[in-house]
């Protein structure tokens, strides 16, 4: 399958931004950390905005964007319907404390934005589960979308803590390590599964033409992110956390490139060597 770069950029930004918002929210609730959610919300809006602009570039006729709200059964329509509510909720969270102060109601507003952020990520993940693409015909897809968001989000929250001079809570440190390990294991399991999806479209990630994004993912998503997380946790280094965040985002992007390249369409008659796959 061709690489759809606007979608690589948009899904990466959405996972980093919304993952960060959700992790910061949960860490504030569970460990009593005082991360300023208005700043986190504004940062999430920036990521969501970049992702939104990128995804518009994917459309061939973007002037017809408003037709996207028509089919409630389509995960893309669900995603499009959630987006404005999520944007408004995040904007309200972002302005809370700057332009106005809603006091105790902040909790409800932040929770609502969190629920919408989670729903958005779930819809995006579900949109890519397709029977016609054997590599995507699996529950791995939704798990991967949520886990990558959790990993990038926890790393971003760690960077936010260190940048604002807040000590990294033990819960956050444990969450980051757990998400990183789980994410890497799930991605490895997905790569192994691609080798035997059948329908004449088995994909060996370590071979051409998948090799480059595969190596880029290992270098950035595993080695780079792991090293950055270690530096951030052992030395309380903001630079380490920032490096881990950049590496994690790059790892998600590389992984998404591999994800697209490996999503070959089921051959119609896979028992014959003729390749009907038109790579569209």
């Amino acid at each position, binding site marked *: 399958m061709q690489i759809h770069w606007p979608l690589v950029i948009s899904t990466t930004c959405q996972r980093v931004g919304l993952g960060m918002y959700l992790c910061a929210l949960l860490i504030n609730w569970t460990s009593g950390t005082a991360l300023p959610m208005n700043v986190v919300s504004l940062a999430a809006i920036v990521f969501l905005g970049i992702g939104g602009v990128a995804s518009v570039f*994917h459309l061939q006729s973007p*002037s017809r964007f408003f037709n996207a709200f028509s089919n409630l059964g*389509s995960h*893309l329509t669900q995603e499009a319907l959630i987006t404005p509510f999520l944007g408004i909720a995040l904007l309200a969270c972002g302005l809370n404390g700057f332009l106005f102060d809603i006091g105790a109601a902040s909790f409800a507003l932040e929770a609502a934005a969190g629920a919408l952020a989670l729903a958005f990520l779930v819809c995006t993940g579900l949109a890519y589960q397709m029977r*016609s693409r054997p590599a995507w015909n699996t529950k791995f897809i939704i798990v991967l979308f949520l886990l990558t968001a959790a990993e990038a989000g926890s790393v971003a929250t760690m960077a936010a803590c260190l940048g604002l001079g807040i000590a990294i809570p033990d819960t956050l440190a444990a969450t980051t390590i757990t998400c990183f390990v789980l994410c890497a294991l799930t991605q490895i399991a997905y790569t192994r599964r691609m080798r035997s999806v059948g329908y004449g479209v088995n994909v060996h990630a370590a071979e051409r033409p998948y090799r480059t994004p595969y190596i880029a993912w290992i270098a950035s998503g595993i080695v780079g992110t792991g090293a950055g997380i270690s530096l951030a946790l052992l030395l309380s280094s903001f630079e380490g956390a920032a490096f881990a965040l950049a590496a994690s985002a790059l790892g998600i992007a590389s992984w998404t490139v591999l994800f697209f390249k490996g999503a070959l369409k*089921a051959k*119609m008659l896979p*028992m014959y060597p*003729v390749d009907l796959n038109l790579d*569209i």
Partner: protein
Amino acid sequence: MASDEKPSEKRYGMVIDLDKCSGCQACAVACKMENDVDLGVFRSRVYRMGPIGEFPDNLEMFYFPTMCMQCEHPSCIEVCPTKATYRTEDGVVLVSANRCFGCQYCIWACPYEARTLNPNTKTVEKCTLCIHKLRRGEQPPCAYTCTTGCRVAGDMNDPASEISKVLAANEDRQYRIHPEFGNNPSVVYLIPRKGAETLCRSIGRS
């Protein structure tokens, strides 16, 4: 007919006899001409499967025409966020070019390589089964142009139609592509009597 009985709905489809197809591509050309299909866009293709095996006894080869399968449960309709893709009452899947915004999810979701993005119109195109012809009682150009008569289109729910007769006469050779996906295509292939042993073995036919 009793007053409470409703006439069964039409279900337009096509049967393609792979034993007859000679790979001449007349159907692909006729489709292009009838629908004024742009360069780089295809609604109908013919592929050659094989040759594999060894001459003279184990050689396999046949031609395989492809098009939109006009599914009963189309994946393209499920995913289309704009409802540009829809199914008519007579079972034909169509694309409304005025609603399509070119997200291409239908192309990804279709298991049958039936759709193409037209780079000129920026919308997705596919075979319409020439529904304008079928509704007038005519055959689609790909069928009437076919040099070997391997294609027959019509109402599969009408027992008196030509397609129903062809299907009834060839029950043992009927094959729908990827039935496990649950799309239930309305394009039915009649598998070749000779030259497709690998296909027959893999789908459990002798």
